[in-house]
């Protein structure tokens, strides 16, 4: 079995996000990029499958600032091969990425491709279904459990309200991972450093990127809402007092403990 995991970096939402002076993209000057958390789950799911069956795991990521560490971390977790796609990705969208990654995947011929179900900066759909269509393979997203049997994958697909569909997919296929069966494992920085010395990132240049497939954005702006919370300021003591009076107003303090 061979599994390819596609991983990308996304803006860290904890940082302040600003719009580029051009007004149609994010300002990337100070943008801190981190691994898309669902891609991290996809890596974990691949490693879990490797631990159960003898599977080769290849992790592919486009070259964004910080990608080397992400790839070496995947390697420290158990990935067998790490590939960095190089090129100019400053204004790339998922359609272009899907086409480019599909061309690599056609060469690698994996049985299964895993990627995160979505990323916070997706604007032309998530990459999984586009990738699957480029490969002419079936896709199942919102997946939170995978078992492999011969040439099929049995997956748990999430529906709203906690309902789960158990499905079987004939391989090769692409899955969009929502959550791995266990939280992504932690690897010590020292282990990642060690891996950096002993393993290599396989760099593969991508030349032509075809961004078609997305309508033009004419304006990007910070979310502005008509309503905003009434902000309570002061010391923790003062804030707690105010909140207690809110609880009283709402009539929820008379209740006895359950």
């Amino acid at each position, binding site marked *: 079995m061979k599994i390819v995991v596609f991983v990308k970096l996304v803006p860290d939402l904890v940082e302040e996000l600003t*719009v580029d002076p051009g007004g149609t993209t994010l300002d990337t000057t100070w943008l801190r990029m981190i691994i898309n958390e669902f891609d991290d789950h996809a890596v974990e799911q691949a490693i879990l499958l490797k631990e159960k069956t003898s599977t080769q795991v290849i992790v592919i990521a486009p070259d964004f600032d910080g990608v080397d560490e992400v790839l070496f971390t995947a390697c420290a977790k158990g990935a067998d091969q790490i590939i960095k796609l190089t090129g100019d990705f400053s204004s790339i969208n998922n359609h272009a990425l899907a086409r480019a990654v599909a061309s690599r995947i056609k060469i690698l011929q994996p049985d299964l491709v895993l990627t995160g179900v979505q990323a916070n900066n997706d604007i032309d759909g998530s990459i999984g279904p586009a990738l699957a269509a480029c490969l002419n393979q079936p896709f199942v997203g919102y997946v939170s459990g995978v078992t492999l049997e011969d040439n099929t994958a049995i997956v748990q697909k999430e529906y709203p309200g906690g309902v789960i*569909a158990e499905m079987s997919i004939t391989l090769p296929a692409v899955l969009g991972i929502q959550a791995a069966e266990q939280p992504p494992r932690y690897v010590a920085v020292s282990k990642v450093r060690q891996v950096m010395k002993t393993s290599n990132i396989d760099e593969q240049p991508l030349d032509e990127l075809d961004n078609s497939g997305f*309508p033009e954005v004419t304006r990007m702006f910070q979310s502005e809402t008509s309503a905003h919370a009434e902000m309570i300021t002061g010391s923790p003591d003062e804030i707690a007092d105010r909140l207690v009076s809110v609880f009283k107003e709402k009539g*929820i303090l008379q209740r006895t*403990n359950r």
Partner: protein
Amino acid sequence: MSQDIYVLIEHNQGQVAEISYVMLAAGRQLAGIHGSQLFAMLLGYQAQGLSLDIAADKLLYIDHPALKEFAQDAYLLTLTEIIKSRQPRVVLFGNTTIGSDIAGAVSIALGLDLASSCRYFTSDGKFVSQICGGKIMAEGNLSSGTTLLTMVPGGYKPEEGQSEHPPVIENFSPPVLDNLRIKNIKFIQPESFDIDISKESILISVGRGIQTRDNLELAENLANSLGGVVCASRPVIDQGWLPTTRLVGKSGKHVKPKVYIALGISGAPEHVEAITGSETIIAINTDPKAPIFDIATYGTETDLFDLIDVLVEKVEAAKAS
């Protein structure tokens, strides 16, 4: 190309998903702008009954055993046929477990433009999408060809997509659906051993800001003194710190308590869509730009670790007095 607006009706186990009605409301607005008709597409098996309250001019019904429940490959084959033959102006999908799985594939297969996470359309028909956990909005014009969009809830009331008059049904023959590679085996219903958070009136909800499992005790203390129940955002559940029955959000429960206290929750759209029915939302978050403050009634930027113990003491004191 026609100017008609097409909406994919989403359903699962015999129930139409709420996002379908949100899309019908949006579709109605677009049909008004383009002076055209609103079509609903229902793919199913002996499922005409699901169409009764759908507010559309026409309902295209496609009947096939392989379409009984959602399967991406069968849907993809069917939808590409419909879109090729009808050439709509716009096709709306949910940004959901169904719509997101196929919209991108239809886009690649037919070479049509796709914009995701659209929240609403402006009065002149531009789409407005939300990205970056709801912090950034992107506005754009529809493309010149058929444009595909996935929609998130929040911009339209589902009731606006419902009607007492059933739509006119038009049957559309399904394409050959053989050699399918995806099969539904069974549906697993959520566990019901736990309390039902959608029925609770005081919820203390914890997010990633709680940092560790041990810190959940803080939330439990507050819940105990207020007579409430602890629930959580997805990252906390994925860590296994609370059972999935306590998950609030798109993939968990929608809640409508009297008071919802969000501790260290950013307010991502997948979380927010499930709490807007709360009477009062109190958000405690150190990031002044956290989107949770846009929907909360009260907010404070205080560190939750400085506040909770004090708050529990004060609640206890107030109860004793």
